[in-house]
Each structure stands twice: as C-alpha cells, then as structure tokens.
C-alpha cells in the first residue's frame, strides 16, 4: 500500500540526495558528520591502543590513592595522606579563590580607569591611557613573575623582624606584617564559637560562626532592601522621600555586631615565632603577586570595554540629562552607565573567562592552583598524563561555562527590554 502511495508522488531516487537542492545541504552535513565521527573514533581507538601497548590502561583509580605531597595553601583540611582527588579539590578552590578576587578587583579598577580615561582633565586621562597601554601590551606571565620577584626581593623577610636591631617592623600597632613571604593580617576568632559542621561524612566542614554571621548579615540586608522599597513607594505616592538611611544602616550593622559580641569575637594577631609569623591570616606572596598581576592586566581590557560602552551612548543623552539639571557624577551613574552596561556586559564575560583561565599561569610563582596540583604534581607523581589533563580540562570547561551562565543571566536582566 505505502509503496504505491509513494510512487504516486513521483518517487524518491538516490540521485536526488546530490542533485536536489532540497536534500543537498542535508547530505553534505551528514557526510561531514560521519567523517568527523570516524576521525574522532580513530583517534580514540588509536590512543587507547598506543596506551595499551605501553601497558598504561586509562583509569581514574589513582585519584583515591594518598597523594603523598603537601600543599601550602589549603582552604579545607588537607595533609599528605589525603587522596589525590582532595588535592585536586584544594587546587580547584585555590583557582576559584584567585579568580573571584581577581574578577572583583579587575572590575573595580577597570570601571574606574575606563571612566577616568574619558575625563576632561588632560593629566588624568593621559595617565590612564599610559597605564592601559603598558599593562595590556606586555604578556600577563611576565607581570606575574615581575610582581612575585618584586615581593620577594624588595620586602623584608621574617628574619629582618627578629632580634634587638631589627631592620623591619610590623605596621598598625603590631597587627600587620608585610614580608617577602606574604602578608600577615589579624584573623577573626571567636571565644565562644559554635564549632564546625561536618558535611558529606567529614569530607569537609564549615564554620558555624561564619554561617551565623552571614545569615544575620543577609537578613539585615534583606530588611534594608524592604525599607528602601517602602521609601520608593512613599516617594512615588507623595513626591517626598522619607529619610531612611539611619534605619537601613542600623538593621544591617546592629544585629551583625550583636552576633559577633555574643560569639566572643576577638582578633588573633600574627606574631613572630620561630622561622615565621604564626597566627593571623596569611596571604602568601604568590597569591598576592598572581592576584595583582591578573587584576591589573585584565582591568586594562575592562577599562577599554567600559570606555567603548560609554562612548556608544549618544551625546544627546548626556546633554538631555544636563538640561534636566543633573550633575556630571549623577549623569554618569543614573543615565550613562545603566545604558552602557548593555554594551559592556557581553565582552566583560569573556574578560572574566580570560582571567580565570590565565590563573593557570599560577605555577610560575608556585601558587598551587588546579594546574599545580592535579595537572602538576599529581600528574607527575602518578604518571597519569591523559587522565589528569582530561579531568583538568573538564573542570576548567565547567568553571568557564558556569561563569558565562551567570553573566548571561545578568546580561538578560540589564538588557534593553522591548515592550
């Protein structure tokens, strides 16, 4: 039955796959896809075969064996008996730490410099141009190494703080020490702390003190936002804006201070003990160097993006705002920047991605990021090149996709809404 029905429509001949424009593009795509899949398959089987010939079967079992090495900066507990997978997680956390610090700093510097570069003050705009051109035209690796060298060579070492005739001294009433090994600052401690909450069967634990503080702070901010909303409503209804800043400040600050006080908050000061400063929070020189270099380098690109975004807004907007009697600062923050954001956000996403990926240069200064642990020492000690590199690539891909997902969501919320 069906055969007869088909025949009545004129039939389908094999030649039509090439000569019929309706099918041709489809045919080409399918052939290309098959070719691509064959190439991938060949590469995979070839690699597997060669690894098998070498006697190295791909396996991820090594991840659960003790790593045997120590990592200086670990946000969660770690020692040389922890498995390789935990070392990889430590590396990932260090990567994320420097990436987040870098993105925040680069954005602040970048936006400031971008705006200042458009300043009417000749001196300021020239200075900013010089900064942008120097930093973005020299490879970031050199900046990282330079910052590290400057920190190591120019700052005093802990031994200079020691003894009767010390050549260096601590700053701010003996609470901060700046050394060639890094920065020691006081750390928050709690006399009546709530302890730690173990998660995932003791895989890691989070500080309940910190959680309590953050929860109260978050609640305060939420209430403050509600007060602002109410003030907006009142202003729309009556034209008069009630004075609310002191309420808003109070709901944020007072409960947070109360929590800190009830937990017995005090500062732990760093002190020179033995070879190094002990106590306090320690920001390693390698982290500082990497953070500064990545921030200052990426900030130049962000500055140019911001400048481009501002220049993209028609001059009429500025003039119209000025005609309404707004001051230049308010014109920038209320009229120009909100519109410029639409132009700024998409290229900004790629700068965040670049900064995160550039953080893999950390090994140049001995900062133990993901590249340093999983794709560095673990790879070397276990000899699992393929597995480590694949896993590392997968993790970087996941980080990049998450950043881009979040930024795209933000972009959607600020872009021009067509009604």
């Amino acid at each position, binding site marked *: 039955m069906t055969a007869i029905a088909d025949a009545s429509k004129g039939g389908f001949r094999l030649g039509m796959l090439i000569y019929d424009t309706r099918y041709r593009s489809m045919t080409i795509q399918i052939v290309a896809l098959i070719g691509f899949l064959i190439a991938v398959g060949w590469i995979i089987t070839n690699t597997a075969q060669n690894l098998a010939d070498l006697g190295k079967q791909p396996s991820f079992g090594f991840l659960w064996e003790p790593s045997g090495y120590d990592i200086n900066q670990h946000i969660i507990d770690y020692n040389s008996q922890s498995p390789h997978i935990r070392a990889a997680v430590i590396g990932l956390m260090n990567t994320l730490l420097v990436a987040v610090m870098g993105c925040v700093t680069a954005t602040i510097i970048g936006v400031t410099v971008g705006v200042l570069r458009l300043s009417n003050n000749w001196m300021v705009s020239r200075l900013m141009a010089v900064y942008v051109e120097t930093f973005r035209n020299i490879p970031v690796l050199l900046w990282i190494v330079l910052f590290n060298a400057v920190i190591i060579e120019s700052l005093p070492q802990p031994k200079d703080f020691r003894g009767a005739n010390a050549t260096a001294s601590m700053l701010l009433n003996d609470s901060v020490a700046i050394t060639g*090994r890094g920065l020691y600052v006081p750390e928050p401690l709690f006399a009546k702390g709530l302890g730690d909450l173990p998660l995932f069967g003791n895989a890691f634990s989070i500080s309940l003190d910190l959680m309590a503080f953050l929860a109260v702070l978050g609640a305060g901010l939420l209430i403050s936002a509600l007060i602002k909303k109410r003030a907006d409503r009142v202003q729309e209804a009556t034209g008069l804006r009630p004075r609310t800043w002191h309420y808003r400040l109070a709901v944020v600050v007072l409960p947070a201070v109360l929590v800190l006080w009830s937990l017995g908050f005090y500062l732990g000061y760093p002190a020179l003990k033995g070879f190094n400063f002990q106590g306090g929070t320690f920001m390693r020189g390698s982290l500082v160097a990497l953070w500064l270099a990545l921030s200052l380098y990426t900030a130049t690109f962000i500055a140019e993006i911001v400048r481009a975004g501002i220049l993209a807004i028609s001059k009429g907007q500025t003039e119209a705002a000025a005609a309404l009697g707004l001051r230049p600062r308010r014109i920038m923050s209320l009229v120009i920047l909100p519109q410029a954001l639409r132009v700024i956000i998409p290229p900004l996403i790629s700068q965040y991605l670049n900064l995160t990926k550039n953080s893999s240069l950390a090994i140049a200064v001995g900062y133990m990021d993901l590249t340093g642990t999983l794709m560095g020492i673990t790879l070397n000690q276990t000899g699992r*090149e393929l597995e480590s590199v694949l896993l590392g690539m997968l993790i970087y891909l996941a980080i990049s996709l998450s950043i881009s997902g979040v930024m795209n969501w933000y972009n959607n919320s600020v872009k021009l809404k067509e009604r």
Partner: protein
Amino acid sequence: MKKTIFLGTLTAIGLVAGSAMAGTLEDVKAKGFLQCGVTTGLVGFAAPDANGNWGGFDVDFCRAVAAAVLGDPQAVKFTPTTGKTRFTALASGEIDLLARNTTWTFSRDVDLKFTFIGVNYYDGQGFMVPKELGVTSAKELDGATVCIQTGTTTELNLADFFRANNISYEPVPIETNAEGQAQYLAGACDTYTTDASGLAATRATFENPGDHIILPEIISKEPLGPLVRHGDDQWADIARWTLNALISAEELGITSANLAEMAKGTDKPEINRLLGTEGDLGGMFGLSKDWAVKAIAAGGNYGEIFARNIGESTAIGLARGLNAQWTNGGLIYSPPFR
C-alpha cells in the same frame, strides 16, 4: 577551538606513542644524533657553559652513549627538562635517554614504565640553611618555609620526614633549580631541600658558599641513574652496559691516558673483552667491536668523569663516599664483561 586543540593533542599523543614502538637504536642511527634529556641547569651535573656547550656528570654519560652508538661524542642534542616534564618527554619519545639526577623508585620503574639502567650516583636528600639561622639539625626546622622542586621524589620524602617527626613546615613549590636558588638567596624560604649532591652543586655557585651549611641529616635514599623507556631491551642494554663499561674501565685501570695503548691488546682477558680485542661483545647488541673504546675516549672512565665534574678538586667538591669503587669500600660495582 577547544575541541580542535583537544583532538590535536590526542593525535599527537597517538602518533608519538606509535613511533616510540620502533627500535630506538635504529632511530638514533638514522637521525645521526642522540637526543638526551638533562636538567635545565645544575652546575656539575648538566649545565651549558658560556659558549652554550653542555658539560657535566650526566652530560658526559650522554656523550659516552653517543660515542658508543654513533662513534661521535658530540652527536648529542640536549633537551633541558624540569622535574615535571622529564617523564613525559621520555615516555612520548621526544628524548631517547634521560640522564637527569633521577631517583630510581619502584613506581617510576613499574608504574611509569621506565627502565633504569643502573645507578651512576648514590645520593640522599639533604637540607641547606644559611649559617646565621643557627640551625644544626633538620629536626629543628619546625615551622620553617622550605623551597622544594615540584614533581620530584624529594617532595614526597619531605612530606614523610616532617610527618614522621611530627613537625610542621610550609612548602614553597618551585619549578627549576635556578628558581629555588633565587628564592633561597632572597630569603623567601628558610631552607632549600634537594639531593645532597644538588645542594653542594648549587652552593658552589653562590657568591659566599661559606655562609651556608648542609645539615647532617640525609633523610632518604636517592639512587640516581639514567633511564630509558620500557619495551626496548636492546636500547636499555646499550645504555646499561655503556655505564658499566665506564665503571669497569676505572676498576681495571683504563684511563683516557692509556686507553689507546690498552686498545691494542693487553695480557688481561677482561680488558681485552671490554675493549673488543678479544671476542665481539659489541656485535651482540648491534654496535661495533670497539664501542667501549669510543665510549671511554669520550670523557674518560667513571672516576675521571666524577673527578672532572663534581670531584673534590672542583668547586662542588663532592667526596667519592658511597660512589667509590667497591674495591675501595663504595657501592659502584659493574657486573663482569664476559
């Protein structure tokens, strides 16, 4: 873009691994030079001089192998490798032989699929500290900042040593010896740890070597030796017996001074077998009869190579110690040439 790089990498791994399967001896003869992996620069063991010519203890071994195989001690190209890149370079076939103060361990031999062809230097891990620190024992290093080359056995020994002694430390990972030296001299770390021979070699390049001491504790066994890939026994044999030839030459009293004379034939059968005037040992692994003569001519016997590069008369000033011939109470011992 990402996908392309990924596929490219896989292809490269595939191709290189494929080519590595061929006989290394034929490969080396065909290309006319030996590709030898060495350090990125450790004076005495492998470092380029002012004219860019490599010299050192490990370099001389590479030259001996090149002389034995190709008849020309200069037919070597050196690939500087870091602690991290060396094994990948060897496994992928980028280099034919790795002579880079590499410790012979079980997992490197068995799991990483390499063949260590012997030990050319018996070493152990030590600590170097500035004298002014007043430290006399490694056990006093609680809380110290330690510079350490990543991707080495020393990294693991360090973790074990501090854990076993229940003291803490702060590791500063570095890539190359030069970097470690810079950080140590700037005071970014209190102590630098690596093989004791490496410490001595590094200290010799300091402006004031006397200001630094090497602590008495040797915290590990580090038998250093050259290595080749698993799976090519002929090539492993050539490298192994070249090293043994250099060691036997010292034991038998063959030096670069009397080599030409001895090669004409002597009344000692072992010397004659080694130098090819009796029997044809070289032919058994595809080399010429006088392979050992060429190898010894390249840089002298084991003792001469040691004395010239790292011995007591050099700035590095290492005593023979464990590395003396077994006849002198050391561990250097070659199986017989028979």
